[in-house]
């Protein structure tokens, strides 16, 4: 046509139907009167077949009486061009059709995005809800365990200190108290394991939600100001991690950071999706060339010199240096990160500070179902 359209032709309706599946046209131009199936029938068949799909049908016709045209529109045509057809009018009507098709595509895309946004919002809401439940049960469990410690402890102490009182009746009463106490304790354990979804690794769609929680919890432990800078601007892919392990690593890194700053300075937690990382893992030295979800803990403390940096992940290093504030639990961090297929990068400048970058592999689709823990699916 010379107007930038991709065109396929067919000699009759049957051939047109055959070509439909391979060509997927958005606009169909068809004559009304043809041998075999006519244009109106073709229209009807296409409307049935292409139900819900985009297809703009223009009928070429010399039947331009009112009744005929009404019949054509009822059969499913979108527009008609009266014969004789001139190139200018043909192009103008095709362009009008293309405009409508484009609009329809945009509407469809917006609808799909809307659905996706709603799904994300729901997922965030569910994560928040699970977190709130976890927090609530955590708080209840904490208080219950304190009360139970007193109940069970005093009962046990009484039995030990005053055996055989009242012909052994006191023993029996105390035993009942203890039994009920133990049952209550087990209930707390199961309540908590339900709420925290003890499932080993589970897919974390929004580590940011979790980080918020960790930072809140870190505050009383930190005298230095702690700043959370989770990057929510871009979508962060899911990673397969164990929540407790993340917590333990961040805690170790933050305690180290705090010691490195002598309690004064900023600790920054940053979460981002980093593409095309090319570097050598600081702890296992493997050469990396991949995309990762990066969780970093940085400080503006005294920093680590290159010589020491070499040894911080050594399992014996922390033992030697306990109380010195460096290397606390870093062998654990090394173990956890490599256990989940991740790596660690450390940037450090003496006198300026350190940045510990935990690199998590992005969870693939196939890991998605396998890794969904009760915390996320409930």
């Amino acid at each position: 046509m010379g107007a930038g359209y991709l065109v396929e032709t067919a000699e009759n309706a049957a051939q047109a139907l055959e070509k439909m599946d391979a060509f997927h046209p958005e606009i169909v131009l068809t004559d009304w009167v043809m041998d075999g199936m006519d244009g109106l029938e073709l229209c009807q068949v296409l409307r049935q077949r292409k139900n819900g799909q985009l297809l703009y049908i223009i009928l070429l016709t010399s039947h331009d009486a009112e009744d005929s045209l009404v019949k054509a529109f009822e059969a499913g045509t979108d527009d008609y061009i009266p014969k004789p057809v001139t190139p200018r009018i043909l192009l103008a009507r095709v362009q009008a059709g293309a405009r409508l098709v484009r609009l329809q595509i945009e509407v469809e895309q917006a609808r799909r995005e809307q659905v996706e946004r709603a799904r994300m919002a729901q997922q965030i809401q569910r994560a928040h809800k699970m977190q709130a439940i976890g927090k609530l049960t955590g708080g209840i469990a904490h208080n219950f365990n304190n009360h139970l410690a007193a109940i069970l402890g005093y009962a046990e102490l009484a039995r030990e200190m005053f055996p055989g009182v009242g012909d052994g009746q006191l023993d029996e009463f105390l035993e009942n108290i203890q039994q009920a106490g133990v049952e209550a304790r087990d209930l707390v354990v199961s309540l908590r394991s339900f709420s925290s979804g003890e499932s080993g690794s589970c897919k974390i769609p929004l580590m940011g939600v979790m980080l918020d929680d960790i930072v809140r919890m870190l505050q009383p432990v930190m005298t230095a100001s702690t700043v959370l800078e989770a990057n929510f601007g871009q979508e962060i892919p899911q990673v397969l991690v164990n929540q407790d392990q993340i917590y333990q690593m961040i805690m170790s890194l933050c305690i180290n950071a705090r010691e490195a700053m002598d309690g004064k300075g900023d600790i920054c937690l940053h979460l981002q999706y980093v593409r095309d990382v090319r570097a050598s893992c600081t702890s296992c030295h493997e050469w990396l060339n991949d995309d990762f979800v990066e969780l970093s803990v940085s400080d503006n403390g005294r920093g680590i010199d290159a010589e020491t940096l070499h040894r911080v992940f050594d399992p014996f290093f922390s033992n030697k240096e306990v109380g010195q504030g460096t290397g606390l639990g870093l062998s654990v961090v090394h173990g956890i990160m490599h256990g989940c297929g991740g790596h660690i990068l450390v940037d450090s400048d003496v006198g300026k500070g350190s940045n510990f970058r935990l690199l998590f592999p992005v969870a693939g689709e196939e890991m998605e179902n396998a890794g969904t823990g009760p915390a996320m699916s409930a």
Partner: protein
Amino acid sequence: MAKILVVDDEAQIRGLLVKMLSVEQHEVIEAENGTQGGEKYRAHRPDLLITDLVMPEKNGIDMILELKKEFPSIRIVAISGGGGITGSFDYLPIAKLVGALHILQKPFSLQELKSAVAEALGTPGAR
């Protein structure tokens, strides 16, 4: 027959520990938060510190971190109901991380406490 400092914000728990430890002939000192705990540790130099973690004023982790700096070979047994009141996270592993020899989840039995205390006291430690 050791000198033991017990730090917990719950009077009932402190009372229980005092009783349990006195039965074992230990000398027990009490404190009800991290600030008081630190002061009493410096004043009395006990052989062992048994401390709760979630407490007002100053929490147990903070107190441990401070004391560990001053007394590197301090002997500590940490006790906690787990999952702080502010969240579902557990402070006990952190106590271990910052230097507690033993951690006990509340509620614990008399026997668990006795063996944790005995083991901690058996661990070499200078004052």
